[in-house]
């Protein structure tokens, strides 16, 4: 064994508690860049099947003729975007990433977050996607011209998985987000009222029918991330806990009785789905965050 081999072994093996030796999975920086490039474009051109199916179902049940016609146009828009390779919506959003990174994965050649930002930059350029990020929120507001920096959330897990999901998040629906720092004395009715009031106030702004992500518990920041993460669940899937699943259905019913309807122009389809995620929280708190996704509820994933 020469000197180089021993260096290589030092970096490329990990010792688990069992004493077994496992090789680190190495993924090159450029592999991540290319994968991110591809999913940014894919997400913006192709509406996910679950969202498309939910829209199609809504078009059959919507009671307002105008609402029905709008839902059909949303479907026609998604068809056209996919066939003509056009962005579904001109607001191709902030590139929000949810990454699951195993402790057995090593990125060779650079930082994972740098690779994601570089992939975003190239994907938004090659895909003719809109660059919607300004460098400074308050004073300069100069467009960075490449849609970076992306918003990146990384969960660390055991194993050799690297999965990356992009959620191009439009400004119209993101602006309708809300946070309520509820107290332990509040209950599920407080949450139902808060969500219903938020959706009514938002009206047509977030491009209904929407997908509603709700984060309950944690801290203010944790609840907000859970709310956004909830948007990534299969549209219409239920929380594994029956009590939260029932609450999802109750909120969906209430929201669809507001009359907001497609585009806020009236109707029975205001939301396609309500997804709740929850987390343990402080004895004094019950944060509730709402993140709304438009009917162009885009996302795409890759596993490396």
């Amino acid at each position, binding site marked *: 064994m020469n000197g180089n081999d021993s260096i290589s072994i030092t970096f490329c093996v990990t010792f688990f508690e069992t004493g077994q030796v496992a090789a680190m999975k190495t993924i090159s920086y450029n592999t991540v860049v290319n994968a991110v490039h591809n999913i940014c474009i894919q997400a913006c051109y192709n509406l996910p099947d679950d969202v498309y199916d939910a829209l199609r179902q809504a078009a059959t049940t919507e009671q307002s003729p105008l609402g029905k016609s709008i839902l059909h*146009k949303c479907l026609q828009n998604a068809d056209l975007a996919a066939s003509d390779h056009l*962005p*579904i*919506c001109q607001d191709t959003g902030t590139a929000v990433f949810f990454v699951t990174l195993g402790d057995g994965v090593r990125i060779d050649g650079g930082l994972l977050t740098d690779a994601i930002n570089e992939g975003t930059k190239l994907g938004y350029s090659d895909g003719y996607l809109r*660059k919607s990020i300004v460098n400074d929120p308050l004073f300069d507001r100069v467009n960075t011209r490449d849609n970076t920096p992306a918003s990146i959330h990384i969960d660390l897990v055991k194993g050799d998985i690297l999965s990356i999901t992009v959620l191009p998040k439009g400004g119209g629906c993101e602006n309708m987000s809300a946070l309520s720092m509820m107290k332990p004395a509040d209950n599920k009715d407080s949450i139902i009222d808060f969500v219903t009031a938020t959706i009514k106030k938002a*009206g*047509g702004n977030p491009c209904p029918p929407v997908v509603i992500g709700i984060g309950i518990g944690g801290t203010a920041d944790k609840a907000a991330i859970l709310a956004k993460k909830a948007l990534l669940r299969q549209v219409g899937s239920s929380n594994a806990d029956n009590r939260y699943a029932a609450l999802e259905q109750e909120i969906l019913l209430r929201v669809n009785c507001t009359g907001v309807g497609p585009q806020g122009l*009236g109707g029975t389809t205001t939301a396609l789905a309500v997804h709740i995620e929850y987390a343990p929280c402080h004895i004094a708190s019950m944060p509730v965050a709402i993140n709304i996704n438009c009917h162009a509820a885009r996302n795409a994933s890759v596993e490396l």
Partner: protein
Amino acid sequence: MIMTIAITTPLQPAIVESLRAGDEVLISGQIFTARDAAHKRLTELIENGTPLPVNLTNQIIYYTGPTPAQPGKVIGSAGPTTSSRMDPYTPTLIKSGGIRGIIGKGNRSPEVKKALIDFGCTYFVAIGGAGALLSKSITSSEIVCYEDLGAEAIYKLSVKDFPVIVAIDTEGNSVYERL
């Protein structure tokens, strides 16, 4: 009954005033894009008494920031953005800029509604999130000014049967108040 009406820009005041909330309208002619940053600049010019870089009299402003055009294409996706963000600027643009129509999405403030009534301007909505479909009604696109703003620059678009719905008419009737 839902009416479908074809109109052409520049808009004639009598035609604008005949439109009613809920009417489905197809717009042809030229329209101008402007969103947040462009509105800020235009209203600053008006407040300082400086002439605007584009004549908006009897014209329509479309709140959109399109995606870049692919090679050989006129424009990328081009759907409406949320109108309420332009509420602080809109009364000035109606009163002093002379615009007669606006295309966006979502409800407007009471101040905007008052300006629509006082100066005879119609607020239209297009389907948000249907930017690919709407782009098919755009036949040409050129930057007029504020190129430095990227997607927020002011473009002159030629449109043919661009589909919109009258959301607030010049009498103040609103589709949002029927709910």
